[in-house]
């Protein structure tokens, strides 16, 4: 199934032959390069990456995992509010992170910690956001990263519009955008893919199919054989990829990226993965899934697989325990900075509502200050 390159099947007119054509979503074919033991299944497709790049990618995945675990504990300690863990989805985002450039755009949903960091969003900012401060979306270093977008699937249309701008302005930029399996049921998903296909814009749509939309499994979300197959109706190349296989994700992204830059338009990547954690820290997965199922998916863990590959290739020489300790210190430092961020002020509520604040808002703020004075004097 995976070891032979099949006769290309084109999904739409005017698209050059690409790796997407070799894995037909209608047949539920999946692009996979290494297996759960880190063994290379498909040497022909193995990307030409330097050892250093692979090691760095693993470290980024590990860093994201440690940060994500710590975010969950900070929340449990009552030092942060509701947080959506990315545990288990690191390979997808770091594979994109290796490719995405400073000038490229990221239109995230809300489970994209790793690629947001890869784009230069700081953990301090992420933590600040989940502490309930909008300043966490005021990214100081990250270029072309949109704020977290909670309304499901709506960001896909923004990505499409950015793609139009890029094309119109004849820029060499690519948009990366993300949605979950549940989000593919929203009208905005279909509308975004349709527009992107018609306009032939440089957008890479990734579905992080982590099997659950909160409690609803993907089999009750769609009657389609998979999610990648949805691309066909829009005349967009689509591919199902093992999202826990760093190399497969890298190959898919590289091809989608080149395709976009060459002016050939959008692509849709279904990244098959598993949400190892809860939907958010408010959710309890034991209500709707079994321990056995979780253990089964544990075997596909993206970090374990890449590590096994590196061990076999003899390129991993680091002390992982020590690395984790270093990461923890760094992450905690970022957290402390977020905790010590300036206290939230009344003007923080008003200041960014309009570029030109209307008098009615100034009056509401002034009235509230009168009330605060009254309250202060009453003590």
């Amino acid at each position, binding site marked *: 199934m995976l070891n032979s390159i099949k006769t290309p099947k084109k999904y739409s007119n005017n698209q050059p032959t690409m790796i997407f054509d070799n894995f037909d979503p209608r047949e539920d074919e999946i692009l996979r390069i290494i297996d759960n033991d880190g063994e290379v299944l498909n040497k022909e497709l193995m990307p030409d990456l330097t050892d250093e790049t692979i090691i760095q990618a693993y470290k980024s995945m590990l860093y994201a995992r440690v940060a994500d675990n710590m975010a969950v504990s900070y929340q449990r300690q009552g030092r942060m*509010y509701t947080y959506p863990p990315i545990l288990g989805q690191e390979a997808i985002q770091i594979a994109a992170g290796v490719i995405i450039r400073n000038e490229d755009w990221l239109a995230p949903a809300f489970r994209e910690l790793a690629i947001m960091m890869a784009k230069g969003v700081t953990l301090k900012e992420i933590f600040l956001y989940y502490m309930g401060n909008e300043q966490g979306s005021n990214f100081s270093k990250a270029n072309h990263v949109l704020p977290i977008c909670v309304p499901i699937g709506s960001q896909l249309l923004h990505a499409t519009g950015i793609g139009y701008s890029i094309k119109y302005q004849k820029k060499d930029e690519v948009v990366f955008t993300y949605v979950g399996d549940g989000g593919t049921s929203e009208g905005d998903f279909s509308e975004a893919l349709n527009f992107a296909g018609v306009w032939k814009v440089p957008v890479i749509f990734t579905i992080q199919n982590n099997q659950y939309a909160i409690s*609803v499994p993907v089999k009750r979300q769609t009657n389609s054989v998979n999610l990648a197959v949805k691309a066909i109706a829009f005349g967009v190349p689509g591919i199902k990829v093992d999202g826990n296989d760093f190399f497969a994700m890298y190959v898919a992204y590289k091809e989608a990226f080149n395709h976009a830059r060459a002016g050939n338009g959008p692509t849709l990547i279904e990244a098959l993965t598993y949400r190892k954690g809860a939907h958010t820290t408010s959710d309890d997965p034991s209500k709707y899934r079994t321990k056995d199922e979780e253990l089964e998916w544990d075997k596909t863990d993206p970090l374990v697989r890449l590590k096994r590959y590196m061990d076999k290739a003899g390129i991993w020489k680091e002390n992982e325990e020590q690395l984790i300790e270093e990461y923890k210190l760094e992450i905690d430092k970022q957290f402390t900075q977020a905790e010590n961020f300036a206290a*939230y002020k009344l003007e923080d509520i008003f200041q960014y*509502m309009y570029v030109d604040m209307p008098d009615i808002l100034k009056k509401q703020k002034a009235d509230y200050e009168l009330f605060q004075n009254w309250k202060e004097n009453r003590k």
Partner: protein
Amino acid sequence: MSVMTIVQAINNALDIKLEEDKSVVVYGEDTGVEGGVFRVTEGLQKKYGVERVFDSPLAESAIVGAGLGMALSGLRPVVELQFDGFTYPAFNQIISNVSRMHNRSRGIYKIPMVIRFPYGGGINALEHHSESPEALYAHIPGLKVVIPSSPHDAKGLLIAAMESDDPVVFMEPKRIYRAIKQEVSDEKFSIPLGKAKVLAEGTDVTVVAFGAMIRECQKAMVMAKEAGISVELIDLRTIYPIDKETIAESIKKTGRIVIVAEAPESFSVGAELMAVANEEAFLHLEAPPKRVMGFDTIVPLAKGEPMYMISPDRIFYEIERTVKF
């Protein structure tokens, strides 16, 4: 009688109607297996089966649009939208079709449908999880909009909503979902839609509120009492059709009105209540009607939310100013 929270009272109302009326179906995102993100529908799928209580795919417009189809063809759907801020994808179906079908068909089709969702702030939530869009829905001709403030009312009003042949938007104050416990009758009962309730009689000032703000007003009333101010507290219960009579009667008695709600102040239910005060009781007013409402801003995330949310202090402050005017 059983002690119930609002969550349990709503669950109980759904249970009673599912039991007695086979045309009732309940669905939404995560409402089946999980019983909803707030567990409002917990246990109902087990009891009534997956054909009557189920999970839908994730698409609010489809949840409401398909619900309308069911209502057109013999069912009485109760659909859940997960949060206030996630109701907007369904706006088109609600405004363009649900609210109009009876009128459009000149009465051939009745729309016995309830659209439920949790609303309001004060729970330290992420963006889009703290909004109070009651004015958006109340502004749409053809809809009824109902907001309970207690377990007893939640049960009685939801049963009335489910028995209404007109579509009802039923907004549930999530902040007090579990905060208030109350003895509620286990029997079936309903509370008529369109009627406000005088929760406490008073002589100096009328305070009108609904949902989670009732509890804040009750705390402010304690402060008012200490200051020698007698407050008449009215729970609106139904936003639309609005009960002008009860409000006007109260103002005629007290001469003053303070309106409390968390939604942004401009073009709000508060604005409508100001109109009621002026149109129905203008000559009885001894002070300008006053609104204590949210800023015309996005509800801030947790760090800023305490300043946005209406506190008992702030309600008392405006009550006192109105009385001393």
